[in-house]
C-alpha cells in the first residue's frame, strides 16, 4: 500500500490543455473519488496515474517514488476499466492469472492466488467460463478479481459501474466499498455519478475543465461547497440558484420579494449575488406569505419515499424536495420558504462568500 501524490500536473493534447495544474494528496489506504462532468479530465488524470498517458509537466508519486517515466507494469497498480477489458479468448481463471503468468509466478502460486481472489468475489464456479458467457455483473467482478490477484499498491477504477443497470450498480457499489474496507488498499476511483462519489468516497476530488474545484469529505462538500460549480454538482436533485441584489434588509429578488439573510457578506450594498438553497431546504407555504419566494407548481414527481416538486419561480425552475406526500396540484400558486441557516451566497465569480 502507498500514498499517491500529484503535484502541479498538467496535460495537453497538442495545443489543447486538458489538465491545467492539479494537486491532490491521497493518503495510504484512502478511497478517493475523482468526480466531474464529462470532459473535465478526470479519466485522463487516472490514466496518467496508471501510466497510460504521458504527463506534460508536474510530478506523480506513488509511495516515495516519482513515477512520471515508469511504465505502467512497474508502477505496482491495478486498474478496472469501464468496459472491463477482459481478454475474450481467455477463461476467467486465465484472465485473472495473466499478470502473474507474465511475472513468472509459479503455476501453484498462480492457482492459489486466483482461487483465493475468486472465493472472495464468489467467482469460484465461473473460473472455467469465458467472458462472453458471463453477465455484466459477473464480468465486473472478474475485472475486480484480476486487479485483486496482483495485490497492488494502488487500485484504479475508471467508471466501473456505468455499464451496469441501476439495481446492480447499487449492489456492486456496496461490494466495492466492502472490498476496500477488507483490503485497505489505496484506491482512486473515477465516476461522473455524484451519488457514487457521495456514498463510497473517503475523499472526493471535484474536477471541472481540467482543474480541481474542491477536495474534501463527501459531507463537507455537500455542506460547504467552495463555489457554485461544486454546489450545483454535488447533491441530487441539484441545488437551486436564485439571482438577487443585496439590500439592507435582505436579498431583493427579481419578483420583488425580499429574502431575509441570516448572514452578512462582506460586500457593499446593491451587489448582485447568487443565493443557493438545496431542494430539501425549501418549505411550502401558502401563497402571499411574507419573506418567501412566490412560485407556481409545474411538475410533481412522487417517488413513494419523498416527492420532488418542480416549480416556476424567479424566471426559471426551482426544485423542492418534500419528505412527506403532498396534495398540491399542477398550476397551483404557492410560496417557498427557505429553512433558516441553510443558504449559501455566491459572488459573481461563483465563489461562496457566505453561508448561514
Amino acid at each position, binding site marked *: 500500500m502507498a500514498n499517491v501524490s500529484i503535484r502541479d500536473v498538467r496535460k495537453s493534447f497538442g495545443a489543447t490543455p486538458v489538465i491545467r495544474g492539479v494537486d491532490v494528496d491521497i493518503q495510504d489506504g484512502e478511497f478517493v473519488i475523482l468526480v466531474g462532468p464529462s470532459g473535465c479530465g478526470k479519466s485522463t488524470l487516472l*490514466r496518467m496515474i496508471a501510466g497510460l498517458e504521458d504527463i506534460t509537466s508536474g510530478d506523480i508519486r506513488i509511495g516515495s517514488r516519482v513515477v512520471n517515466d515508469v511504465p*505502467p507494469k512497474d508502477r505496482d497498480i491495478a486498474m478496472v*476499466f469501464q468496459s472491463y477489458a477482459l*481478454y*475474450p479468448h481467455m477463461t476467467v481463471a486465465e484472465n485473472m492469472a495473466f499478470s502473474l503468468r507474465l511475472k513468472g509466478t509459479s503455476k501453484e502460486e498462480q492457482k492459489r492466488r486466483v482461487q483465493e481472489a475468486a472465493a472472495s468475489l464468489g467467482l469460484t464456479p465461473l473460473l472455467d467460463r469465458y467472458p462472453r458467457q458471463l453477465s455484466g455483473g459477473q464480468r465486473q467482478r472478474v475485472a475486480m478479481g484480476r486487479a485483486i490477484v496482483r495485490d497492488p499498491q494502488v487500485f484504479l477504477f475508471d467508471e466501473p459501474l456505468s455499464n451496469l443497470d441501476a439495481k446492480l450498480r447499487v449492489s456492486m457499489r456496496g461490494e466495492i466499498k466492502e472490498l476496500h474496507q477488507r483490503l485497505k488498499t489505496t484506491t482512486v476511483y473515477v465516476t461522473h455519478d455524484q451519488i457514487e462519489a457521495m456514498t463510497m468516497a473517503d475523499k472526493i476530488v471535484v474536477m471541472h475543465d481540467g482543474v480541481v474545484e474542491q477536495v474534501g469529505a463527501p459531507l463537507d462538500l455537500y455542506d460547504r461547497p467552495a463555489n457554485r460549480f461544486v454546489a450545483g454538482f454535488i447533491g441530487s436533485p441539484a441545488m437551486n440558484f436564485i439571482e438577487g441584489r443585496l439590500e439592507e434588509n435582505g436579498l431583493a429578488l427579481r419578483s420583488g420579494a425580499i429574502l431575509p439573510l441570516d448572514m452578512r457578506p462582506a460586500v457593499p450594498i446593491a451587489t448582485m449575488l447568487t443565493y443557493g438553497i438545496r431542494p430539501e431546504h425549501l418549505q411550502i407555504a401558502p401563497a402571499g406569505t411574507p419573506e418567501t419566494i412566490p412560485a407556481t407548481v409545474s411538475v410533481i414527481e412522487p417517488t413513494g419515499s419523498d416527492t420532488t416538486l418542480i416549480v416556476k419561480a424567479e424566471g426559471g425552475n426551482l426544485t423542492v424536495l418534500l419528505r412527506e406526500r403532498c396534495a398540491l396540484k399542477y398550476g397551483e400558486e404557492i410560496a417557498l420558504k427557505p429553512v433558516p441557516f441553510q443558504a449559501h451566497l455566491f459572488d459573481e465569480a461563483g465563489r461562496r462568500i457566505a453561508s448561514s
Partner: protein
Amino acid sequence: MTTLASHSPAERQPISFAFLAQVVLIANSFIMLYPVVVMVFSAFKSTGEIFENPFGLPDFTQVQNFTRVLGETSMPTYFMNSILVTGGSIILILVLGTMAGYAVARYESRTNTFILLFFLAGLMLPLKLAVIPLFILLRDMNLLDSRWSLIFTYTAIGLPSAVFIMAGFLRSLPAELEDAARIDGASEPRIMWSVMLPLARPPMAIAAIQNAVPIWNDFFFPLVFIQTDDYKTLPQGLTTFMGEYTTDWGMLFAGLTIAAAPITLLYIALSRQFIQGMTAGAVK
C-alpha cells in the same frame, strides 16, 4: 378474424420471398457444382468412356487414372511445389501483413496514413503489367527458375489486401484491452501475440483464403518464371498432360481433381472463420 386477415398477407409475403430465394440459391449451387461433379466423374473414366457417355455415372472402383497420374507422371512433384509455394507465400503474407497492419492500426504516427496508402496502391496495380521488369529483377537477383521467385512475387501481390484487411479489423478492437495488458505487465510484442492476434483469427482466415485460392490456381507466373520441371506447380504441370496430338482426358481430370482437393478442403475447414470474419462487426 379481422386481425388474422390483416396479418396473413404480411406473413405470407416473406415466406414466398424466402421460397424464391431458396430456388435461386439451389439453382446457383447446381450451376456452380456441375463442372466440379463432371470433373470428378470424368476422373474415374477412360478417355473413350468420357466421349461415349460424358454425363453418366462412372464406376468409382476404376482408379487407374489416379494411380497413373501419381505413379507415371511428375504430378507428386508439382503437387509438392504447389504446397510449398502456396504455403510459403501465405505464411509470409500473414506474418508480414499482420505486423504491418498492426503497426498501422494500433500506433499513432504521422507516417501511418502514408504507409497504408502505399500498401493500398499495391491493390490498384496489376503486377502482371510489370512482368517484364519483374522478370529482369528476379533474373538479376538470381531467383529465376526457383520456387522463391513465385513465393516473393505472390507475397508482394497478397500483402496489400492482407494489410488492408488486418488493419481494418485490428483498428476495431478496443484500446482498453491493450491498456489492460500493458498494466498487467505485457510487453508490446506480447500484447500483439497474446492479446490481439488470438482475436484476429477471422480476418487472418480471410486473408489466407482469398490469397491462397488465386496463388494455388495461378498459371501465369510459373509459366514465365519456371522452366525446370522440378519446380513447376500444378496448373503449369497439368498442361503437360495435354499432348500436341492426343490428350488423355481421364488422366487430366484425375490430375485436376487432385489439384482442386486441397484448396477445397482448406476452404471448408476455414469457412466458419471466413464467414465470421465477413460479418464481424455487423452484430455487436
